[in-house]
């Protein structure tokens, strides 16, 4: 059992959760993730590690299906079944480069340790966070602390740049140059970022989020096609060169259980709320 030391709803449906752990910090690095299981009947799901110390590991997640809904309903001081990690390969940290870090949705939280690590290695960090509307943006002040430039994008124009990430990238990159783009968030965001930066020839690292179970390389459900080769996102990734990802395959594989996920959620809601 793992105690929830702190829990906060950052914006509707997106939560910040601090979990008790005295081991995650031993080897944790930016870009890695943990696996959690809400209860005895729960799935194992991967969540980006956003922070850690000697007594805890923190995650940011969005409520989507049953598993994240269950996590969302656990209160501070209560317990979840399991926490394991850190997992995956850490972000490759370069130095003295100009790096744009893009986060959307849960990815706004996920980029925090990465921009910290980049900054610690004397990189110039341009942080960009995006959402549908201003009320879905969070952690601005925290992220600004580690950023040399900071931008907000909303699709409805209620804050910062109006439009989607591709509009922003085109506007920014025609006037400025960057050495590297790093993106975390939903598959559509990382896809769109990769598609846009490709024409500028800028190397782009994206965090992928395929379905996982053990997340230690044992089952292969998280396989992704990178440059024509099959890789396991849990042990070979989850970060890959966005220009080499077979996006169609990733999107298709993410939808394997779409019907079951709907069924599971309605089963859970019926059980919980009658």
């Amino acid at each position, binding site marked *: 059992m793992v105690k929830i030391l702190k829990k906060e709803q950052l914006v509707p449906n997106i939560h910040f959760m601090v979990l008790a752990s005295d*081991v*995650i910090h*031993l*080897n944790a690095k930016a870009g890695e993730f943990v*696996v959690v*299981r809400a209860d005895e*009947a*729960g*799935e*194992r799901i991967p969540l980006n590690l956003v922070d850690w110390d000697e007594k805890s590991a923190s995650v940011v997640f969005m409520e989507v299906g*049953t*598993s994240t809904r*269950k996590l969302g309903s656990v209160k501070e001081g209560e317990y979840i*079944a*399991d*926490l*394991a*990690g*850190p*997992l995956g390969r850490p972000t490759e940290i370069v130095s003295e480069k100009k790096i744009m870090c893009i986060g959307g949705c849960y990815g706004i939280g996920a980029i925090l340790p990465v921009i910290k690590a980049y900054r610690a290695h004397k990189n110039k960090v341009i942080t960009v966070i995006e959402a549908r509307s201003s009320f879905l943006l969070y952690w601005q002040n925290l992220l600004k602390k580690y950023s040399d430039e900071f931008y907000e994008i909303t699709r409805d124009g209620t804050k910062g740049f109006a439009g989607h990430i591709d509009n922003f990238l085109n506007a920014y990159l025609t006037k400025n140059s960057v050495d590297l783009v790093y993106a975390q968030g939903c598959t559509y965001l990382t896809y769109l970022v990769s598609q846009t930066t490709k024409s500028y020839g800028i190397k782009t690292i994206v965090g992928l989020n395929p379905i996982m*179970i*053990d997340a*230690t*390389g*044992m*089952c*292969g*459900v998280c*396989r992704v*096609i990178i440059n024509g080769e*099959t890789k396991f996102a849990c*042990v070979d990734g989850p970060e890959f060169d966005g220009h080499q990802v077979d996006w*169609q*395959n990733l999107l*298709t*594989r993410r*939808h*394997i*259980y779409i019907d*079951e*996920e709907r*069924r*599971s959620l309605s*089963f*859970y809601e019926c059980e919980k709320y009658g």
Partner: protein
Amino acid sequence: MPEKIVPKKTPMREQPAKERVKNFNEVPYGYSPEEAIAEAKRCLQCKRAPCIAGCPVEIDIPGFIKFIAEGDFKSAIKRLKEKNVLPAVCGRVCPQESQCEQVCTLSKKFEPVAIGRLERFAADYEASQGEAPLPEKPKPTGKKVAVIGSGPGGLTVAGDLIQLGHSVTIFEALHKPGGVLVYGIPEFRLPKAIVYREVDYLIRCGVKLLLNFIVGKTATIDQLLKDFDAVYIGTGAGLPWFMNIPGENLNGVYSANEYLTRSNLMKAYLFPEYDTPIVRGKRVAVVGGGNVAMDCARTALRLGADEVHIVYRRSKQEMPARAEEIHHAEEEGVIFDWLTLPIKYIGDDNGWVKEMECIKMQLGEPDASGRRKPVPIEGSNFISSVDTVICAIGQSPNPLIPQTTPDLKVAKWGNIEVDKATMKTSKPRCWAGGDVVRGGATVILAMGDARIAARSMDEFLRTGVW
């Protein structure tokens, strides 16, 4: 010596095939005390006891069987446990037909003594009597051992070393202990309650168990070696192989590990009560001919498939699966496509597998394994419709530990190199055994390795000599 030898094993009652394909309950019921005594009396009590040499952990087989014949079941289990910490498991999943029973003196003329069934009986008898009594606590040596992996090998090392007075901590990456016994072997072949009972016994003996601890990631072996005097690596063969043929990443194509882990560890067969889903295919092809393939095929039937095919590139004679598993699969209606090799999976517009293209094979000259090599018959390609494919062609050791332990020598395919006499690795204070050394093998071979390692580890811990 019995007056008249009964030529055949005492049959074991089991769930009828038609019934059992609808549930995940265990297939054989096990012997009653009367059946067990009758079977035990078939044992000739040979002085030379070839069966003992046939057992990787050297159980005193005639010894425990004699106790059963006398109705002294408590002594039988005590004798078994002197050499085997997992008798309820081994009685069910060991390939006795190629080990102890194969060399049984009776088998020269008749069916061998049903050693596996008797082992299972003794262990189940003990379980039915409530909590197993604990052995006397040994004097603590003050030495600390880390065991990585709680599969059959890890549990054996832990059981042996705790009895010798060492402090033992097991590190398990998953959220349940048992390794392949829990994520790999289905409930209908090995009820998980049995594994948890054995683990619980070790914990009551003083073994510490840390779940959700991924050695290689959470902490490296070098970090463990700062706190522990010796390390046993029993992390199994968890990296699934694919064939690298077109269409393997289509939806509906599984590795055996994924399929079985979903069903066994995550209990997807109880979805939606359990949250993890699994595709309940109607036309399922399982590629491969080992026990894992049989487990997948039989699981698919229980998940409601109309038709399950085992697609295997050699013939029945070369199948590595146990005869009993093939027999059970046949009884349950699994269709065997011998001498058939998939070469391509074809998807529908939504990215789901809908067909597979195979080629027929014929057997040529023997290959390195001594089995006749399958050779494709040109022009024999054919297409069959499938909605689920499970690739059960084998696996190699998980690379997480070798990747983070640079001075640990590994061979091709990532198997850790050891000295077979001691199971010592190239890295001081580290031993390894089971599938991480052998690639995909069996529960009992992992336990045999563990027994050898435990002896060597104990010697090291007492003398300090590597």
